[in-house]
């Protein structure tokens, strides 16, 4: 009897590990494929899948940095990275400048109507780029910003501000009121207390907001595709799929670019994901 129970337990454990492994492999497989492709010789890459003796999963020839060299020397990849960084930095600055006061106001100063307004602002996050890119193309044309990075700097805050306001509102709410009330009793004004007492405590919240603004900028494809037409002005998520695809046999360089662009961001993402989820589910999960 005891032995049977043991067997059942072992089988259950094994099933758990197997299921965990399966789901992880599903998630990771395209990244593995990016990795293998990025470091393979062209000879090793372009062997038709009908050839059964050639195993595409492994390096049949020694790995090479050839695709990375090509990417850095012959393509506009570094310009795309620079453009993404410039637009990202500008958008993060605008977002924090506007969303920090707004998030604080919604958390502390405005009562019930503020809560409603907070929800309304968050709902605008649901209005997707695909609904707005056509009217925006006209707005951008009127402003004379076609094919300019400024168009992106102008438009991206429309989704980073709602998102970060909501995120920061939750963050400010989690800081005990007593702390700033105490500071105000000690003679600070409301703004002084916010600046000197609350903001230092909210540093991790500000970092989270900055990081997510940046990743949202990096993830955008629709607006970049609509506004930017010259290769030198593209961002990474537009340039890599659109401008590297001139030559059919360019998969090595394309996967190399995708790999070195996405892996750093994916790793940092893990540090922040819990706050992101807490922001999205606020209201659905009672704290």
């Amino acid at each position, binding site marked *: 009897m005891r032995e049977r129970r043991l067997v059942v337990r072992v089988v259950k454990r094994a099933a758990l590990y197997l299921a965990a492994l399966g789901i992880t492999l599903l998630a990771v497989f395209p990244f593995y494929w990016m990795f293998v492709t990025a470091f393979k010789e062209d000879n090793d890459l372009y062997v038709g*899948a009908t050839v059964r003796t050639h195993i595409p999963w492994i390096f049949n020839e020694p790995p090479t940095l050839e695709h990375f060299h090509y990417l850095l020397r012959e393509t506009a990849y570094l310009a795309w990275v620079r453009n993404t960084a410039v637009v990202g930095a500008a958008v993060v600055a605008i977002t924090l400048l506007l969303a920090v006061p707004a998030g604080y106001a919604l958390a502390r100063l405005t009562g019930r109507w503020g809560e409603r307004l907070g929800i309304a602002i968050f709902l605008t996050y649901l209005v997707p*780029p695909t609904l*707005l890119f056509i*009217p925006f193309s006209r707005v951008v044309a009127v402003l004379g910003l076609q094919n300019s990075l400024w168009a992106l700097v102008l438009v991206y805050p429309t989704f980073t501000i709602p998102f970060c306001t909501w995120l920061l509102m939750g963050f400010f709410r989690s800081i005990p009121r007593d702390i700033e009330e105490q500071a105000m009793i000690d003679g600070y004004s409301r703004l002084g207390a916010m600046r000197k007492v609350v903001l230092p405590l909210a540093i991790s919240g500000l970092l989270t907001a900055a990081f997510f603004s940046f990743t949202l900028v990096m993830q955008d494809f629709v607006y970049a595709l609509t506004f930017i037409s010259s290769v030198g002005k593209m961002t990474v998520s537009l340039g890599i799929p659109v401008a590297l695809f001139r030559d059919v046999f360019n998969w090595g360089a394309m996967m190399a670019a995708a790999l070195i662009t996405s892996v750093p961001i994916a790793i940092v993402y893990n540090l922040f994901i819990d706050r992101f989820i807490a922001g999205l589910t606020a209201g*659905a999960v009672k704290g």
Partner: protein
Amino acid sequence: MALPKGVQAVAPAVPAVFTRATLADREAALGRLLLAPAALYVVVLVGIPFVLAILLSFSGARSGSLAFDWVGLRHFRAIIADPQFLLTLRNTLIFTVASQVLVMILATTAANILEAAFVGKRAVRMLLLLPWAVPVSLATMAWAWIFDSTFSVINWTLRALGIFQGWIYWLGDPELAMLAIIIIHVWRMFPFATVILLAGMTAIPLEIREAAVIDGASFWRRLFQVNLPLLLPVVTVAVLFGVVFTSTDLSVVYLLTRGGPYNSTHVLSSLAFQRGILGGDLGEGAAIALFLLPVLVFAAILLLRMARRAEVGG
């Protein structure tokens, strides 16, 4: 408990009623002041384009000129009579529903796995999030290479394992291309849904679940009669965002199939882009994109109702 004592000792010394009343007046004004810039940005740059999106769909506007002439319902009449548009509407619906059903099944499984304690759990969670964190357009290119017509690693593996000897033209056949698009959406969205579900699960009080175990409820009973009902609000959030992100996505279809083969895999957003931006017919593009609106209104209403319930319950 040491701190509140000190605070209590000080608090009565302040004339509470008087200061709070005057402070509240100024605070409301300050609140409005702090909120105004963000609210203004959003109202101007989301509100105006939103209204413009509706106006454009009734106009003969074309890119290249800034002219704006009213054509009434012409675009709507034209697209409703257009078989390509009806196919596109159907595709959007299929992609969204099919991928969300699969996402919820996978995510429930993954969340239940991640809830159990095992070695390497942190690593699994971290790897699981990769698909969600990576920019969609880059992930789509990786998949485009995986589904390549000559070099598809899936085809090679199926043959090597002796599962399927024929040749699969993933992106050359309408049905297979649709399957490929659904696979990418599922792959991308399920990690996100998993993490949301997991957050909800850890918020369920332990006593409730322990009680169910002690009362002898089986795994399935616990899943369907205890956990999922308690998780309903969180599941709704996960599905809602899944539906919004999937139904409005442009990059997967645009980069993987360009709407092909034979325009069979277009979705509303890719058709709107093709007609509105590439074809230059802004009015018709806007009219096509506007069909995404019902989904969003529905999502917004659901979220609002949930927010109100949380307000009342909390």
